């Protein structure tokens, strides 16, 4: 047995006493470690790439990175809420849409990181700015976005000599033919986010809005909303199937992948999955720009950001990870490429990204995104606009109208409910 010398004993004892008195562990030998919670990406290769980049990050910086995944929406929000309430959990979290507004007081100011990124890549896109720039401060770093475009069965269009639509009215014309062919239009009108992702742009394209720019005045009761509802009514009657009233976020993807729908409004994920799973429909699917109306072309997307919780004890290493993933052009490119055009860069100078040239079917995405907005636009995001969104007032108003309630009564119902939310 090795005997401990008097000198060794005294050194060790003094060291331990010092650590205990200071309450701080010595820097030497202390492993810096951060944890990152993100969702299961719709493009699964992107998660694999993230893990690979994470390992390189640890090798290059000595900071250990633990990446956890959570399935999207429901469980994700519960997890975030519990982390905030208990003030414990991950250091970094991936945030969707308006989350930075929802968790504003709990998020570190990351304006320094965003400023560096914007200097390099140009301004963050409008939808990312709307989602993550909260009351003058960047509460999360724009990471990527997945824009809503039109996904259609090009083979069926060619077969029936249908013209690719450019406006919502054009869609009605081709939709009637598609339904006759047994391939209806698939736009959900149910309590999910894809329903809002279409209803918002349709409303904006007809010149309407839910709440005004001031964030206080309800503007849903307008001639534009009447036009929008009338459009939905005829689409529902002549171009769609009643099944859209029960659809989840994944249903329109499944419908076109399985050969039923002829046209859906969605990011390119339906095509990516069809291609990866080698579905027979993959070859026939293509994309075109989202559609316009009398008041122009307005589109929406689902921006993602990375936020750092204030309770994190590793804010600087966390920022270092964001700079590593997003700030190094070659790493960011590598990450974007792995998402197969589902995750697109959300900075202006990167809009013509090489990922869009990896497949001719991504041509519709080139140059898009700059004019995109988040839900609730033009009202600035707030907890009240969030409540209007999360209680699905817009799709419910449409669902009421297409299932028999008069247009006037449906709008009056939505107006009353929205006013109550804003007054509350």
């Amino acid at each position, binding site marked *: 047995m090795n005997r401990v010398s008097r000198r060794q004993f005294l050194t060790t004892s003094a060291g331990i006493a010092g650590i205990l008195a200071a309450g701080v562990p010595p820097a030497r030998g202390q492993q810096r470690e951060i944890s990152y919670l993100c969702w299961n990406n719709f493009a699964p290769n992107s998660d694999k790439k993230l893990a690979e980049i994470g390992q390189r990050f640890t090798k290059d910086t000595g900071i250990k990175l633990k990446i956890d995944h959570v399935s999207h929406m429901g469980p994700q929000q519960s997890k975030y809420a519990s982390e905030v309430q208990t003030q414990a959990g991950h250091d970094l979290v991936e945030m969707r849409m308006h989350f930075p507004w929802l968790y504003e007081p709990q998020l570190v100011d990351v304006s320094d990181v965003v400023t560096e990124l914007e200097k390099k890549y140009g301004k963050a896109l409008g939808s990312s700015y709307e989602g993550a720039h909260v009351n003058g401060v960047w509460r999360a770093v724009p990471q990527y976005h997945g824009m809503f475009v039109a996904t259609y069965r090009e083979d069926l269009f060619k077969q029936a000599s249908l013209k690719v639509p450019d406006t919502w009215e054009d869609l009605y014309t081709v939709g009637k033919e598609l339904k006759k062919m047994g391939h209806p239009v698939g736009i959900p009108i149910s309590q999910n986010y894809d329903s809002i992702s279409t209803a918002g742009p349709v409303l904006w394209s007809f010149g309407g809005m839910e709440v005004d720019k001031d964030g206080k005045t309800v503007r849903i009761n307008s001639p534009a909303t009447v036009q929008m509802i009338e459009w939905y009514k005829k689409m529902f009657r002549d171009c769609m199937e009643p099944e859209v*009233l*029960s659809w989840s976020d994944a249903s329109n993807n499944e419908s076109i992948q399985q050969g039923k729908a002829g046209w859906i409004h969605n990011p390119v994920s339906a095509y990516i999955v069809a291609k990866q799973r080698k579905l027979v429909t993959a070859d026939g699917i293509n994309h075109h720009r989202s559609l316009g109306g009398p008041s122009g072309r307005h589109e929406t997307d689902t921006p993602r950001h990375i936020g750092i919780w204030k309770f994190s004890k590793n804010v600087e290493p966390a920022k270092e990870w964001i700079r590593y993933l997003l700030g190094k052009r070659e790493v960011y490119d590598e990450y974007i490429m792995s998402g197969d055009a589902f995750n697109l860069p959300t900075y202006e100078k990167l809009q013509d990204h090489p990922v869009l040239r990896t497949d001719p079917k991504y041509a519709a995405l080139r140059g898009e995104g700059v004019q995109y907005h988040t839900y609730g636009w033009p009202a600035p995001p707030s907890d009240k606009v969030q409540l209007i969104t999360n209680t699905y007032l817009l799709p419910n108003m449409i669902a009421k109208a297409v299932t028999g309630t008069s247009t006037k009564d449906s709008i009056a119902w939505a107006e009353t409910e929205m006013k109550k939310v804003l007054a509350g």
Partner: protein
Amino acid sequence: MAIRADEIPVSRGRPRGTARVSGWLDRERILGPVFVTPALLLLLLLVAYPFVMAVYFSLSNAFIGRPSEFIGIRNFVRLWDSDAFRQTFQNAFVFTGVAVFFKIVMGITLALLLNEQLWFKRMIRGAVLLPWVIPTALSTLGWWWMFNSLYSVVNWTGIAIGLMDPPGPNWLGQRYYAMAAVITVNIWRGLPFFAISILAALVAIPKELYEAAEADGANANARFWHITLPLLKPVLAVVVLFSTIFTFSDFNIVYVLTRGGPINSTHLFATLSRVLGIDTGRIGEGAAVSLYLFPLLVFVVWAQLRFVRKQAY
């Protein structure tokens, strides 16, 4: 030679402290609380604390991660003004009333069948428990697939055997069908609890009562109404009590199948509470939704337990 009790040598080697603790523990007044304390602490931690917090949240303007203030019953008043909440309130009573009624009727029927001599009795009794054993979210996903608008096996079967006209009902997309679907799954899920509990009570009914009734000329119908049902009442009361509370607070089935849609027509208190409290961050309102019926449920529990006590004594 006889030895007197006071002559028995007393061990002097035992430490005095241990002897004193042992002496205390011999007293019921001390031992009782010692045994009860861990359970009490667990109850305080896992039941009382969350409950008190929920009550506090419901009376405040709590928002995720922000400081909150006491606002009295304003959340409860405001909720009543919301169309989604009023619809939820109505849904909860329809859902619970219809589901519990069918669970009682079908539970008694199933228990009577299981009580008869059958082939593979044990296997069948075990199989009946399956819906109750499988995790709810998982089994509900199976039902979601069966009701799915794109590939509903229910509709496919119905059309194949000529019961439905193509394309069949839009189960999760039309308000009454959607409610019927969530109620069906709840009945399927809750039926084993009723059947097995009632079966346990049936087995305990003395056979002599039936023999005597039969000797007096009572037919099967009369035996059921005058012997079986009266003797099942205490068990039924407890089962109905538990089931009513569980059904009112159901979450998984609605969350997986419809997420409260279409147009809030299947929202229950738990699902609406989640939307407000978690998805939107309004913890105060979310807690108020989940506690809205608390006074009513307390009354139901009190009334039912009183009834059970009367039946027992």
